[in-house]
């Protein structure tokens, strides 16, 4: 059943926002089935989750893709994959949001090529490519190229779509991930606006931009926001952003058409605050967070995605996603929310809070612009440092009980939950997905015309070196049968690869608690017994770029008196073991959030054995109980999941683990 005819009931009723669910896994075929099922349940737009190899520009058979294919999203290596993903879904009538960044130009090219093959006109395509690299450097970690060429690719896509695909949002400026990384509302606003200014300034400077196009470009820039549990503040944040965006369009870019200055944004509500303990409470959190971005008509989201209540436990099942979709439908169709004018106009409380947020955000934005703007503030790690600091503060407030999280640090007595027990309570990605994707890719490579592929890649490289727009040659390459890995390799060859600063030079905590002090003494005493200070390595193997957790562990270990080697994301198991040996560490902590812990942890253990290195390993991640037991059997000393929020205890256990390992090797 599709959308009910809600306009009939009340003629003044607003149209609801677009309902989406961030989804995709295993293969194009499995994801296509999921999308069609979701649309049948009343979802009104799609939100494509790509797997990490696709996001970072590797084909399914690349060594770095091992264990990651189909895990956190759908693998798309070829035009054939893209066509299969949308089989039976009409391009022209579908609003598609793609969470894709470093390889956004390529996935958009595949989408356009697939639409063209099915009689679709690119001018009619509606949707969004996330395409925000600044926040990838700051938080999400699926960047590939250095900041400058990354900004160039974004600017190419903006300049291309403004006329060729006028209904497409070429970039979603993301404050979402900033909040996940610990940003305060003021930082969210300031840093995302700095980011938008960097993009707009780059586009404005293009010689090939028609003189009258800038206002239209401004009108196509949309945002992707987070909504946390402090939902009144979230209402104010969205209102402040709408005001500031209008002002920015007017003053900095001379946009006179008021409609083009409207603040348009989509939302995924907060995942950071979803708990593993008493996970049923997350449903209530999700509802409240949805209110934060829908209550105020003036600053209401255009599209909304709600996470599943159990995503801190593992991959949600279709049933869990359906439950979240129903929240949206009840809010939009059952309640009277869409029948009223703005509920907050004239509220002194809201006005004062909005004014305060706007004022502080402008001051912080000014600081970033003074140091050269968003790109400079990525390269000198200013923004990253501020985020790590805020996140550290937040975690400490939860640990100390100053910030209450129900079921986690308060009201922890609970009846056993009937919802989370037993087999099948979370979704497991089919283990054969990777193998099948590789086979499909090999078959595809065999049947394509090799000469056409070579020519298309040469054409792409020439266009890039000559400063031409990346989009037309990419669309041609998509039709010619180029793969995701080949496209990205061509760009890597020209632009190089980038490593972002990790930002873990955060200031130290102001006050040491008694528990920390005790841990610190244990660390020092162990250092004396070891002959040198306790040294550990925090590693993130695989392609998962979500480094916030690993950073917090690194900072806390430093504060506990350990010497901590942390080199950031995307390391191969071989590199981690090499690093552990060269650095002479006493323990290794691995952080893996993509669900590929099975393969990657075993690879690290195997490499350690080959190198004859007897260094104990602990692992943190979104790891279901049975996997944790399996990892322990394989030799992992401790396994941590999101419910282990007490970092001091965690530090203490690292000391235990090293002491145990030393007892074994006098």
């Amino acid at each position, binding site marked *: 059943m599709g959308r009910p005819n809600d306009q009939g009931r009340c003629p003044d009723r607003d149209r609801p926002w677009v309902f989406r669910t961030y989804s995709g896994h295993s293969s194009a075929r499995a994801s296509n089935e999921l999308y069609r099922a979701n649309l049948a349940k009343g979802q009104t737009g799609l939100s494509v989750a790509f797997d990490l190899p696709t996001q970072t520009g590797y084909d399914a058979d690349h060594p770095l893709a091992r264990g990651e294919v189909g895990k956190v999203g759908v693998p798309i290596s070829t035009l054939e994959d893209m066509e299969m993903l949308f089989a039976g879904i009409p391009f022209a009538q579908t609003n598609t949001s793609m969470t894709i960044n470093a390889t956004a130009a390529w996935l958009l090219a595949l989408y356009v090529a697939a639409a063209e093959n099915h009689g679709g006109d690119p001018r009619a395509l509606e949707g969004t490519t996330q395409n925000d690299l600044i926040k990838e450097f700051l938080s999400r970690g699926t960047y590939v190229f250095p900041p400058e060429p990354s900004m160039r690719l974004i600017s190419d896509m903006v300049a291309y779509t403004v006329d060729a695909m006028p209904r497409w949002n070429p970039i979603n400026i993301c404050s979402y991930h900033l909040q996940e990384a610990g940003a305060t509302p003021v930082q969210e606003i300031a840093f995302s606006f700095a980011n938008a200014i960097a993009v707009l300034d780059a586009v404005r400077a293009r010689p090939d931009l028609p003189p009258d196009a800038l206002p239209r470009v401004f009108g196509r820039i949309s945002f992707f926001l987070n909504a946390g549990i402090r939902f009144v503040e979230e209402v104010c944040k969205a209102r402040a952003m709408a005001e500031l965006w209008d002002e920015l369009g007017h003053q900095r870019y001379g946009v006179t058409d008021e409609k083009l200055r409207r603040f348009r944004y989509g939302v995924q509500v907060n995942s950071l605050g979803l708990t593993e303990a008493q996970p049923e409470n997350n449903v209530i959190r999700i509802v409240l967070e949805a209110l934060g971005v829908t209550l105020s008509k003036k600053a209401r989201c255009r599209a909304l995605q709600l996470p599943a209540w159990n995503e801190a436990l593992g991959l949600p099942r279709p049933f869990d996603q359906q439950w979240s979709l129903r929240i949206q439908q009840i809010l939009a169709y059952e309640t009277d929310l869409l029948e009223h004018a703005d509920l907050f106009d004239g509220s002194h409380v809201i006005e004062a809070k909005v004014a305060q947020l706007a004022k502080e955000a402008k001051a912080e934005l000014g600081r970033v612009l003074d140091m050269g703007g968003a790109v400079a503030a990525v390269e000198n790690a200013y923004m990253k440092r501020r985020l790590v600091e805020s996140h550290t503060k937040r975690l400490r407030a939860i640990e100390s009980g100053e910030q209450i999280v129900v079921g986690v640090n308060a009201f922890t007595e609970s009846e056993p939950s009937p919802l989370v027990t037993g087999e099948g309570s979370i979704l497991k990605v089919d283990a054969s997905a990777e193998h099948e994707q590789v086979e499909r890719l090999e078959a595809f490579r065999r049947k394509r015309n090799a000469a056409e592929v070579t020519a298309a890649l040469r054409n792409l490289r020439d266009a890039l070196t000559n400063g031409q727009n990346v989009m037309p040659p990419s669309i041609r390459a998509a039709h010619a049968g180029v793969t995701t890995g080949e496209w990205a390799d061509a760009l890597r060859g020209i632009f190089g690869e980038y*490593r972002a600063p990790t930002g873990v030079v955060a200031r130290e905590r102001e006050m040491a608690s008694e528990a920390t002090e005790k841990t610190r003494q244990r660390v020092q005493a162990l250092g004396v017994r070891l002959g040198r200070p306790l040294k550990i390595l925090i590693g993130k193997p695989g392609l998962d770029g979500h480094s916030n957790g690993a950073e917090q562990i690194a900072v806390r270990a430093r504060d506990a008196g350990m010497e901590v080697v942390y080199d950031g994301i995307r*390391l191969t198991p071989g590199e981690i073991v090499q690093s552990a040996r060269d*650095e002479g560490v006493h323990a290794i902590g691995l952080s893996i959030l993509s669900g590929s812990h099975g393969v990657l942890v075993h690879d690290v253990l195997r490499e350690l054995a080959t190198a004859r290195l007897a260094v104990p390993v602990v692992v943190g991640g979104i790891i279901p109980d049975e996997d944790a037991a399996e990892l322990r059997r394989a030799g992992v000393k401790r396994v941590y999941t999101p419910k282990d929020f007490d970092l001091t205890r965690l530090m203490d256990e690292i000391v235990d683990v090293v002491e145990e390992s030393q007892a074994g090797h006098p």
Partner: protein
Amino acid sequence: MWSRSRRLGTLEAERGERGLRLAKRLLARERGAVAEALNLVDDRRPEARAAALALLIELEQALGFGGPPRVGLSGPPGVGKSTLLDALVRRARARGETVGILAVDPSSRRSGGALLGDRLRVRASARDPGVFLRSLAARERLGGLAESARAGLFVLAAAFDLVLIETVGVGQSESEVADLVDTLVWVAQPGAGDLLQYMKAGVLELPDVVAVNKADLGAIAERTANELAAGLSLAERAEDWSPPVVRISARDGSGLADLEDALARHRAWLAQHDRLSERRRRGRDAAIRDFLAREHGRVGVEAVGGLAALDETLRREPDTSGFALAVRLGEVIEAALRSRSGVGR
């Protein structure tokens, strides 16, 4: 008593054997021995100290005042030292040279812990056995970076063609680094106000080469380079070497050949008139003074006639291994203190 000290002596000998075996493996450039040797020289347990000393004395004697160039990179946080380091490593590898790197980060004064790393850029260029990187915490609370860094440099010098040490320049540590290396490069970044700070910190008297990074920023980089050149010409230096100011961009690679050229010129200058030996000797003497003062205090140094007498001893033994000399002088001090207090009679 006799048998106990004899048994101790045997133990010492065994430990010495371990040090000598490691030294042999290092000098044969066995990469697997490098991490082990660095762990050993960092180990403060008495049983490890004996082996470490044997290792270091052996290495110092084998290398003499020769061995590979030891180059220091210092500068304030955020100037792009890691990117520069990466670029220099890549170029050295392209010439077929192996590279050993010590990267020093400050320790937390409060907790004693340290965040090391963020060096993936260097590691990424180094997925080959020809590059070795060890991060080191400065451990200010435990008496500074000099001792472990000095020992680390000898280990790396035994096994690689080029030895680099990177430190965050925050004032004091530069003079320590200057004593450890043959050539100290100060990395500066364009921007007003920096020059005054450098001069205040006395930093401009130390570097042998100044590299102004981010030269791609244009005019502002040019101005900084000019100001630094002017400041350097005013700074007093004991030697007749005037530090060149090189404009580089670690990001796009421009100016790196000029920087390497400046390094080579400094090296050639050092090679004349025995200057390199002179410099290494100065580093050795500083390390010995430092070691004795820390281990035995001022009372200890006074017991053997004070600093002046110590310097005289050092002058009389220009070619003795620094590590051996430090141990021997330590024993002399201990004997003097013992005879003074009557212990041991």
